[in-house]
């Protein structure tokens, strides 16, 4: 074989390339595939750089994806190189973010010896549960360590909580007594009633409540607090739209588990299904997972994101910084809850916390009921407008600091 793949039907080849991209985490819809085919028609396909530019234009939709795309392109469309068969392999430094199963598949599909496949692990693109899962502390912790009194207090508070999540304006208008003059309706009425606009029709934007997304650290250092916050999520979920995720070494969506009416059952269910409760913490990887797999779906409609963690991170700090920046751009407001903020002597010195802070809109405590109440008030009073992030600046508004501590 001269090339990495036999030169079969170009469309089939394109589809296979799209599959490689999908395995690397890019979006490859049928529509994009059609676009790619159409686009390739317009150019001279013998020019590799042009093919790269065209396919990049179609399949890449974020700057971060560009490196992955280029690496995948290099691997897939590697030109038949006589030196390669002789064993001299051009060194590739960038890896593809494939999980081990997919990597094995591509090794076969591309007809390469293992040494020619790029390294699977890469610091900027972590692999799902690879390596670390062996060290994962698979302890199943019972949530019920909190005193009965505390539990009752939480429930009473949350049931009676006087706040609702702030609303956002939608594009559609609805008739209203007060609001902007609706000239369309006013005039139509006027025309019907003889040309005199006697009654003014008014309308205002329809409003919807913002969805809440809770990303909750359930690692060893956090389990007592996270139980409170899950109870909080459970109670709030009865009246608001809440999506809940938990993580310690990996991320699990638990929204459906918390939907049970009875909070004890819901929490027990969560403890049963989430296997790494009480393990170590890899915030960066959890957020990467969230951004990659869930953000698109759950972060629409001006969502407010709550991250609960003490910032004790055992993972990669650069990754955490990048993913926090991305999460910040994706959410209407990003609130970090840190139970340690409750103690007066605390300052956010841990590597993870320091990395995350510049990308946080509010930094609040979450160590007791009072703190949760303060959080509720915050959520109810969210401004309509997003806090502006200075483009290109490394520093954004975390100077708000320890509000509400």
């Amino acid at each position, binding site marked *: 074989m001269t090339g990495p793949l036999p030169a079969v039907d170009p469309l089939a080849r394109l589809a296979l390339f799209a599959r490689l991209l999908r395995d690397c985490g890019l*979006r490859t*819809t049928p*529509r*994009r595939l059609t*676009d790619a085919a*159409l*686009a390739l028609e*317009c*150019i001279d396909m013998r020019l590799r*750089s*042009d093919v*790269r*530019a*065209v396919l*990049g*234009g*179609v399949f*890449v*939709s*974020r*700057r971060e994806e*560009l490196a992955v795309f280029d690496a995948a392109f290099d691997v897939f469309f590697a030109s038949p190189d006589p030196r390669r068969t002789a064993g001299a392999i051009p060194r590739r430094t960038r890896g593809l973010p494939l999980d081990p199963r997919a990597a094995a598949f591509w090794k076969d599909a591309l007809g390469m010896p293992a040494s020619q496949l790029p390294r699977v692990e890469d610091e900027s693109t972590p692999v799902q549960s690879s390596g670390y899962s062996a060290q994962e502390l698979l302890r199943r912790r019972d949530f019920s360590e909190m005193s009965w009194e505390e539990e009752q207090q939480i429930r009473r508070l949350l049931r009676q909580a006087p706040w609702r999540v702030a609303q956002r*304006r*939608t*594009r559609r208008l609805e008739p209203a007594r007060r609001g902007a003059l609706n*000239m*369309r309706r006013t*005039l*139509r009425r*006027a*025309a*019907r009633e*003889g*040309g005199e*606009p006697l009654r003014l029709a008014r309308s205002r934007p329809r409003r919807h409540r913002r969805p809440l997304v809770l990303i909750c650290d359930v690692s060893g250092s956090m389990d007592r607090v996270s139980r409170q916050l899950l109870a909080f999520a459970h109670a709030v979920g009865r009246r608001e739209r809440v999506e809940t995720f938990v993580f310690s070494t990996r991320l699990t969506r638990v929204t459906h588990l918390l939907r049970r009416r009875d909070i004890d059952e819901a929490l027990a269910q969560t403890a049963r299904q989430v296997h790494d409760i009480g393990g170590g913490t890899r915030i960066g990887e959890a957020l990467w997972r969230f951004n990659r797999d869930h953000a*698109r779906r759950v972060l*629409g*409609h*001006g969502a407010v994101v709550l991250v609960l963690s003490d910032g004790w991170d055992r993972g990669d700090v650069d990754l955490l910084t990048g993913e926090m920046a*991305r999460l910040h*751009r*994706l959410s209407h407001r990003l609130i970090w809850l840190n139970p340690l903020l409750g103690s007066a002597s605390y300052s956010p010195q841990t590597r993870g916390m320091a990395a995350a802070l510049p990308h946080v809109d509010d930094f609040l405590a979450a160590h007791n009921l009072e703190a949760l109440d303060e959080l509720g008030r915050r959520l109810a009073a969210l401004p309509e*407008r*997003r806090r*502006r*992030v*200075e*483009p*290109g*600046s*490394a*520093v954004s508004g975390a100077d708000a600091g320890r509000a509400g501590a």
Partner: protein
Amino acid sequence: MGHTAGVTAAPPTPPGPPAGIDELIERLGAAGYLCDRRLATVIFVALRIGKPLFLEGEAGVGKTEAALAMAGVLGARLIRLQCYEGIDLAHAAYEWNYARQLLHIRLLGEADTGARARAERDLFSEEFLLRRPLLDAIDNRDEVAPVLLIDEIDRSDEEFEAFLLEVLNDFTISIPELGTVRARRRPLVVVTGNRTREVHDALKRRCLYHWIDYPDLEREVAIVRVRAPEVGERLARQVTGVVQELRGMDLYKLPGVAETVDWARAVAVLAEDGSNADATLLDATMGAALKYQEDLDRVRAALPDLVSARPPTP
């Protein structure tokens, strides 16, 4: 009906679409826009398959200029929609001319019922429609399809994005009173953004995406020479070299290409023989490139090193 958008006069004979990527690069160059092949390829394909173009990049890398240059190359009218927080349908697509409608009703006065019913129908006809950039671009009657620049989409709200999605999906706008307006000639749509927030994937999926990076030294020097012909080669190289170093520093606001051009111009005015920039001159004119006090302080401290580290190449 008056166009509300910025309009550039089209030359009498439109030059026609480029036949290939090389021709496009050449013609963009002739229009004063020097771009790399990757960008040109994406533009070329967008033009061919009729897809919107989504250009992202830091401020000042020439996203907007790309659209302006394309309008020049195609001999097309440029229709510009500047996005901002709170932009809505009335500003972006169309609005009814209420004042004229009111007048129309008044003039009707005591007409009989039949005439009034007709008038009510007339009231929401094209005659009373104010066309904003989007409708203008979709419902164009141009010889050459116009270029629609949707600038800084990330400044608008998500709601507006959703609306834009509808428009870019099939190049139609529906006006409840009139029906659906369909594009006869699809405009070349260029959407720009500099990532103050993430634009929704659904919108990006409708577009060809390209991330514009800062140009490399050679290209940026060439750009400076094209934009500011009065600046000598040597001086352009010196200033550009320093700017490229600055982009590696941890600054609040990195200088864009426009800042490089401004800075080179400023230095050229002050330089005695107009050909050499030393640290003192650069220091005096630094405000052309850096706009934050903190950045100025930082760079001022590092400037002697930056200049000496880069011996001028004539």
